[in-house]
């Protein structure tokens, strides 16, 4: 009897171990990191976790003042903060806006395009507290783990060289198109400016012409009036 119970317990533990390491297990979403700066708690993380490349997400920053459960959200906390996101050696300035649900929480929509480690670089002040830090975010996983069937599975490896050439060609085409678009935008801006100048001139001419027409018509009326008077006298 004892051995049976021991065997069952061992099997149960094994099953639990297998399931806990399985990719199909839903892991808790909270991978947010909190750092303390003086009297302020700054928590960063992704809005939706786990994070996959190619899916819209948003880094979030939550700022509270105080400690523990009594900490209170700080309103307009990021007014004097510059926050950028870093991936490898590449950084991008982020514009955080207040979250729609939680006071003192700010989000900046972002689509992480690559798998790997991202971090937030925060510089500035929150109220009177100086902040200069880099806080890592939860790693971005590959969307391929969710893809089925694998989108790249049919690609023959012998074609990779050809694809590289095509991509290079496309890149240069895109660059050229971008330059053309920039020059077109410049032309449009010039046309807009010219149009505004024409509009201003037209407005002025409108005033002058209206006054002119009025005077002209008045002259005609006076002339007609004078002629009719002359006729009456005769």
């Amino acid at each position, binding site marked *: 009897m004892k051995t049976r119970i021991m065997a069952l317990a061992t099997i149960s533990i094994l099953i639990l171990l297998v399931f806990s390491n399985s990719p199909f297990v839903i892991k808790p979403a909270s991978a947010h990191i909190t750092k303390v700066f003086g009297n302020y708690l700054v928590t960063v993380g992704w809005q939706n976790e786990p994070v996959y490349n190619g899916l819209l997400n948003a880094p979030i920053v939550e700022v509270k003042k105080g400690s523990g459960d009594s900490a209170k959200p700080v309103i307009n906390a990021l007014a004097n903060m510059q926050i950028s996101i870093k991936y490898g050696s590449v950084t991008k300035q982020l514009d955080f806006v*207040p979250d729609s649900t939680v006071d003192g929480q700010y989000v900046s929509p972002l689509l992480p395009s690559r798998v790997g480690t991202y971090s937030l670089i925060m510089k500035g002040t929150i109220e009177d507290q100086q902040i200069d830090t880099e806080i890592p975010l939860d790693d971005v996983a590959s969307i391929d783990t969710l893809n089925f069937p694998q989108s790249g599975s049919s690609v023959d490896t012998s074609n990779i060289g050809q694809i590289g050439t095509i991509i290079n060609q496309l890149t240069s085409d895109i660059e050229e198109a971008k330059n053309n678009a920039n020059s077109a935008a410049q032309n449009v801006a010039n046309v807009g400016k010219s149009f505004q100048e024409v509009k201003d001139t037209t407005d002025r001419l*409108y005033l002058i012409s209206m*006054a002119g027409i009025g005077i002209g018509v008045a002259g005609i009326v*006076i002339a007609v009036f004078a002629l009719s008077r002359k006729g009456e006298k005769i």
Partner: protein
Amino acid sequence: MNNKIIALLLAVVISSGLIYTHPAYAHNFGGDESASFLAKVSEIKTEVGFIAKHVSDSAAIGYYSDALSEYWNANDTKEMGERNTLLQKEIPATINSTISDARAGNQDAVKADVSQLNGYLDEAIPVRVDKDKLNNSTVQALAVTFVLKEVLEKYGDAVNSTVNLNDMSQMNMGGSMQQMSVPIVDQLKYENSIGLASAAQQMFNDLVTKNPDKSTYNDKISTAFTKFLQDINNKADGNTVMTDVHMQIHPNLVSAYNIQTVPEFPMPALLVIISIVGVIVITRFRSIKLRQ
């Protein structure tokens, strides 16, 4: 004899139409939602600041509550809800708690409310105004003109002006250069106009720091703002205050920050046309009468 009188009248009316031509455009600025919102934030902050100053003063709180209800109404709440439901709820709620705490005489609570409301309003700016517009100096300058419009409206009421101070056509262009103090008939509106004028000046100062390249115009506008504030503080007559805004601040803001003005209706031409129609009617009537 009668014909001579008619001819003379015609000449007078036509001449008056030509003389009427104003030396400057009336500054009718087009609407811009972003600039309106920036002005609204500044105006609300000014009004809640005054509520904090007048805690327990029911008359003053009543006046500033009415002013606040003009600046933040149900439509503003609805529009905010389209972008951020938290601010949609918190901004009006904090305005109401500021007013109720002020009525209850709770100075500390009002101070906390005002600080929180200012924070929410600052948060609302990037939510409500797109980044491009927020960084656009024309939009910011336009917001200054919107606050100035409120100043003139309040000041006009405070001194019981018979003319609309925002209507440049009602300015006395050839008026005496000697400034006169006028009696204040509504002290709260007077105080409010000073507060809003200071807010407009602060908005302009913020604009200056972001646009150092426009120093020539900025210097002129800064000087004009200083004089404007002085004139209001000295209870100058409406025409003096109008001159400060319409002849000094507005033209330089328009030129420096490329603000588009709505073209003025051609009143001279209208006067001339009306006079001609009048003369035609009279002469027709006279000729019919003579034939009879």
